[in-house]
């Protein structure tokens, strides 16, 4: 079963990852590039800002990065497909376990519901605490944000699972799980927004940031619906074998 799951998840990942790459290339990446152009404009300012704000990591300027254009796109597509593989195989394991233990039916239509749960769990709830960021935006220390992200994902997942699988009044556990990350609180930076010295650039970056939230919300929704539908269909076929 493990082998079939890996192979199936690779197929799903290829499809969902490529669709995501297309949506991303159309409406997400252009915003990232536009924001980067402001960063590049004043490298010494950007460097000073990074130093002043006690970021816990420093960007090594010597480190390899894919060249702009085809190389960068290729690595982004590869990263998208790999991420989709990770999400797909977790979703597949969850669906097959739910079918096995809770006698939950699997199908492509049910899969879309699972996909929407994934969207809530991995994108919507974490993004409500930690806004999707464009390059150059001030943010709290990375480690704290990563820990909070994991907390938000896990507790949202447990909340959804409680609602679906626990009987009667026990469903109320969902409230505890959904509240947990907000009681802890998402780490916030001391200064919000951007530290670009130019007022016009600042306005443009703020505008790009607003667009970026919508762009990622749409791209991730499309991605999760496709991933969920395909995984549901695949889980049904794997369960029949």
């Amino acid at each position, binding site marked *: *079963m493990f082998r079939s799951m890996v192979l199936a998840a690779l197929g799903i990942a290829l499809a969902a990852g490529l669709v995501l790459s297309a949506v991303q290339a159309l409406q997400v990446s252009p915003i*990232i590039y536009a924001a980067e152009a402001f960063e590049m404009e004043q490298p010494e300012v950007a460097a000073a800002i990074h130093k002043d704000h006690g970021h816990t990591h420093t960007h*090594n300027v010597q480190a390899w990065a894919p060249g702009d254009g085809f190389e*960068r796109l290729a690595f982004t597509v590869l990263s998208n497909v790999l*991420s989709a593989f*990770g999400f797909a195989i977790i979703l597949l*394991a969850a669906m097959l*376990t739910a079918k096995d233990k809770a006698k939950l039916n699997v199908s492509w239509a049910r899969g879309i519901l699972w996909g929407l749960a994934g969207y809530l769990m991995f994108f919507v709830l974490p993004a409500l605490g930690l806004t999707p960021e464009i390059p150059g935006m001030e943010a709290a220390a*990375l480690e704290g944000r990563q820990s909070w*992200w994991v907390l938000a994902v896990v507790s949202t997942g447990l909340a959804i699972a409680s609602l679906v699988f626990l009987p009667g009044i026990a469903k109320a556990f969902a409230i505890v799980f959904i509240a947990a990350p907000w009681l802890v609180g998402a780490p916030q930076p001391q200064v919000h927004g951007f530290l670009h010295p130019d007022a016009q650039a600042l306005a443009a970056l703020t505008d790009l940031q607003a667009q970026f939230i919508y762009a990622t919300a749409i791209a991730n929704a499309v991605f999760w619906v496709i991933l969920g539908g395909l995984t549901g269909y695949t889980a049904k076929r794997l369960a029949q074998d």
Partner: protein
Amino acid sequence: MTTSTVISKGDSAVSSRALANSSVQMAAAAILGMVVLMGVGFAPMDVAHNAAHDTRHSFAFPCH
């Protein structure tokens, strides 16, 4: 047909072993998925960050 009769003889033992085996496989599959996601989305090395940069931003993984 003969094989299915053979299996049904030791029915409960076989199915409970198959179930335990399947739980282990499900857990292994989920862990593999998490490891891949951690690598793409969270690995702190500059090279990993740069290669997966646009993906990290698109998924709103904490970045920079």
